């Protein structure tokens, strides 16, 4: 069942397209040699080009172009061997030149597509309209002084990729899945760090609503939403607002809006009438950007394995279910971690441990896979102890928790704590005899037909053996004695 919103006049479908601004990972800015490090002191990474001093000229950074091409290839998109930079003209204090250099008419990357996975296991393809390169503006700080605004030009001139989707998205969930997938792809490629909280990925959300089967109605653009959760909330809030407008007998006007996440609503920023006339024209300081086909082919050959390909391989080689494979490949670090654990071991057990105990521990500790307290190699060793019956599954969980806390080697923990599993059938028989003797009433009930009590006997024996009894041998001994 597809997503829909109920109004007083019936069911509404929502139509969403996303424009994602992704900051390119590069040492220098798009048209200047200034550095791009996040969090540097204000105005410490500004060249005369970034500050638009008289006579300064832009020179394209080849690495930024390569990053855009890599991203385009990762989005299964057409690479345009000839593209062009235009000037987008408007006045603002954090836009030193009075224009932003962007690719308006001829972007470097054309149509592409990405596949998203939804919670119900289904997949959908979302079209990519284009990807273009452009400069970021500086930052205006209005809260530093009662009467003055401060300008930080560190970001001025940093390379952005604007990735525009087709209006193919039909639910907040799909928007979230699209953003997560896009982030996953650019992180795999190393072209954008995808950190929305640092502003290196931001989304403009185009929303409209319609009745099923209708052509598109007027859309509104919700600007600069900076988390996946807010994007999903903004879509729902904006769609509901539009439905109310239509159902109230009015018309939705095309405008730019802002999402107020504290209130969970959108509000008008500027109407179509107030829209800037950006007076785009080709930047005469730059020649058309012409790419050598062989260079593009060379970049393609060096692309890393991307999430979709990795997922397919995990399903094929490790026999994982689609959902598990998707979870494991979402982040490269997780996928790498998993592959190290799974290599030469039971891949499904490895998947369960990574997605179960490890993820839970990371969550609890507030850590990421990159700074996991348990290394992939250690977890692998733990699984080896489990596989060769040195410890039981239950003991393994305890050992794992100790590994999380102390970061020690699993074999060392097992030795130090004496957790090695008891496989001596004599010792097990003694424990079984004691338990059965102490619970004669339960034994009678069991024999009368209450077979569920078997689990109780197992538990009692394990308890008596401090959890170290080999579960298979305990079962076997109990069955023998109770039959």
């Amino acid at each position, binding site marked *: 069942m597809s997503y829909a919103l109920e109004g007083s006049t019936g069911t509404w479908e929502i139509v969403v397209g996303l424009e994602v601004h992704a900051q390119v990972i590069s040492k220098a800015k798009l048209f200047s040699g200034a550095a791009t490090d996040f969090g540097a002191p204000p105005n410490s990474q500004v060249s005369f080009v970034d500050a638009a*001093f*008289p*006579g300064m000229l832009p*020179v394209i950074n080849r690495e930024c172009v390569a990053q855009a091409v890599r991203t385009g290839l990762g989005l299964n998109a057409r690479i345009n061997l000839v593209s062009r930079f235009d*000037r987008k*003209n408007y006045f603002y204090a954090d836009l030193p030149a009075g224009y932003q250099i962007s690719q308006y008419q001829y972007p470097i990357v054309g149509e592409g597509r990405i596949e998203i996975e939804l919670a119900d296991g289904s997949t959908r393809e979302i079209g990519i309209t284009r990807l273009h390169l452009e400069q970021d503006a500086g930052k205006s700080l209005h809260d530093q002084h009662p009467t003055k605004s401060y*300008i930080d030009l560190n970001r001025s001139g940093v390379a952005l990729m604007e990735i525009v989707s087709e209006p193919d998205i039909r639910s907040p969930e799909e928007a979230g899945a699209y953003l997560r997938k896009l982030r996953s792809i650019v992180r795999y490629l190393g072209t954008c760090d995808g950190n929305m909280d640092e502003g290196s990925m931001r989304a403009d959300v185009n929303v409209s609503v319609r009745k099923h089967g209708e052509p598109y109605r007027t859309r509104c653009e919700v600007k600069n939403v900076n988390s996946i959760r807010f994007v999903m909330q903004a879509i729902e809030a904006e769609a509901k607002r539009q439905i109310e407008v239509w159902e109230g007998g009015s018309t939705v006007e095309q405008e730019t809006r802002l999402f107020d996440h504290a209130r969970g609503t959108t509000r008008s920023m500027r109407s179509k009438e107030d829209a800037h006339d950006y*007076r785009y024209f080709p930047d005469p*300081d*730059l020649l058309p950007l012409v790419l050598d086909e062989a260079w593009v082919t060379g970049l393609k050959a060096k692309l890393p394995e991307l999430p979709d390909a990795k997922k397919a391989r995990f399903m094929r080689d490790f026999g994982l279910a689609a959902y598990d494979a998707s979870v494991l490949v979402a982040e490269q670090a997780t996928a790498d971690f998993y592959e190290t654990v799974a290599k030469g071991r039971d891949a499904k057990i490895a998947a369960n441990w990574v997605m179960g105990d490890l993820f839970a521990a990371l969550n609890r500790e507030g850590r990421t896979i990159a700074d996991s307290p348990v290394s992939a190699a250690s977890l692998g060793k733990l699984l080896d102890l489990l596989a060769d019956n040195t410890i039981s599954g239950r003991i393994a969980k305890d050992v794992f928790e100790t590994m999380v806390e102390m970061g020690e080697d699993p074999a060392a923990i097992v030795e130090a704590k004496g957790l090695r599993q008891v496989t001596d059938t004599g010792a097990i028989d003694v424990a079984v005899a004691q338990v059965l003797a102490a619970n004669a009433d339960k034994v009678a009930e069991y024999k009368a037909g209450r077979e569920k009590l078997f689990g109780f006997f197992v538990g009692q024996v394990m308890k008596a053996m401090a959890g170290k009894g080999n579960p298979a041998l305990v079962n076997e001994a109990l069955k023998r004695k109770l039959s």
Partner: protein
Amino acid sequence: MSLTDLTIAAARRGLRGREFTSRELTEAHLAAIEALNPRLNAFITVTGERALAQAGIADAAIARGEFAPLTGIPLAIKDLFCTEGVRTTAGSRILSPFVPPYESTVSANLLRDGAVFLGKANMDEFAMGSSNMTSAYGPVENPWKRRQDNEAVLVPGGSSGGSASAVAARLAMGATGTDTGGSIRQPASFCGIAGIKPTYGRCSRWGVVAFASSLDQPGPFARTVEDCAILLGSMAGHDPKDSTSADVPVPDFAAACRREVKGLRIGVPREYRLDGMPDDIERLWQQGIAWLRDAGAEVIDVSLPHTKYGLTTYYIVAPAECSSNLARYDGVRFGMRENGVDLRDLYERTRAAGFGAEVRRRVLIGTYVLSAGYYDAYYVRAQKVRALILRDFTEAFAKVDALLAPTAPSAAFAQGENMDDPIKMYLNDAFTIPGSMAGVPGMSVPAGLDVNGLPLGLQVIGKPFDEETVFAVSAAIERAAGITALPQVRAGA
């Protein structure tokens, strides 16, 4: 002969022969500036102390036997070139307090080759003008006077009026200029000196305050064709900091001045005639044709059919680019600021107070032609016509090696004339603009005097990156013309 009358070529020989020092040469020019600049107003800023320090360094180098191409040669630098530590105004009030912390590539190349900078030459505001009347630092006087008319103060042309006036009056041995639609060639013609706009991309634009980026091109002024060739040899060269700078070798331009023109095919474009153009100019053109024929060149009539659209097209493209290029003068980071109640008010006050009428006119025209709804009708169409103008030249150059035409449709006019009607003023550049639109090199060489005794230039237009032929043809005209007349206002006169 006084030191200020020397050509650069002669001064180089004199410096090498220890006949005089760079300090003496520089002092002679500084004295000339002191005497005449109050009248001519050719310099906005004179950097006497720096010049003498540079001359001292040059003399020390010469003493060690080290000679670079321009060691010890005093020059004027158009105030559009950013000069490190020296105020650079672009002729505008808005940049009146601006001292660049960097040196333009072209001026840095000249310094690398040992040049001495006397100061910053006056110019039309942001290089927008053909008379030097739009400078915020006052008009520049042309050192030439009409016969029997000591009253009329003539304009030096523009926008590089200060550079041309300074070189003509012997306040500098040579000067840099920039040419967007004729800003080197027209003032060279008006002031009776030589000046070349090189091929677009020959000289770096890095550090040159931008007017219209797709047209702006630095070039030299000097009193002889050979001196221009010497200067261009230093100014030119590929610059990775300018994406439009051409990665082509710099040939020996001075050697090209000594080439024969025998056997060259010279095209005469029939469209380079305007209604009401003085007979003197037509006569001089025919004279130039005759000189080249006598020197063994073959003269061929050619057609550049889109010439008549040059001016209108230029006045769409150049203002469009300038409206965007000048957006950075907003009072926020450098230059002058007029405080306002809010950001928008600050912009409006700063720009209203900082820009003169001609700059405001062109920013408005440019904003208009780029606006939604007008862009296709004006800007896109102009670019298409520009392509046709380039095709005219390409087709002509399939048949000829260079073109010969007048530089400007008139001799220097008086301050105050042509001021009432901007269109009339724009016509000054009718013969220089097509070459600018096509990006081809063009040189104005003094060829004769008009009925009032004022200098007139002929323009030699060459193929892209074939400045050598332009220099060869220009030098042939210079030799044949053998002009001896001198401007009335000059050092030592």
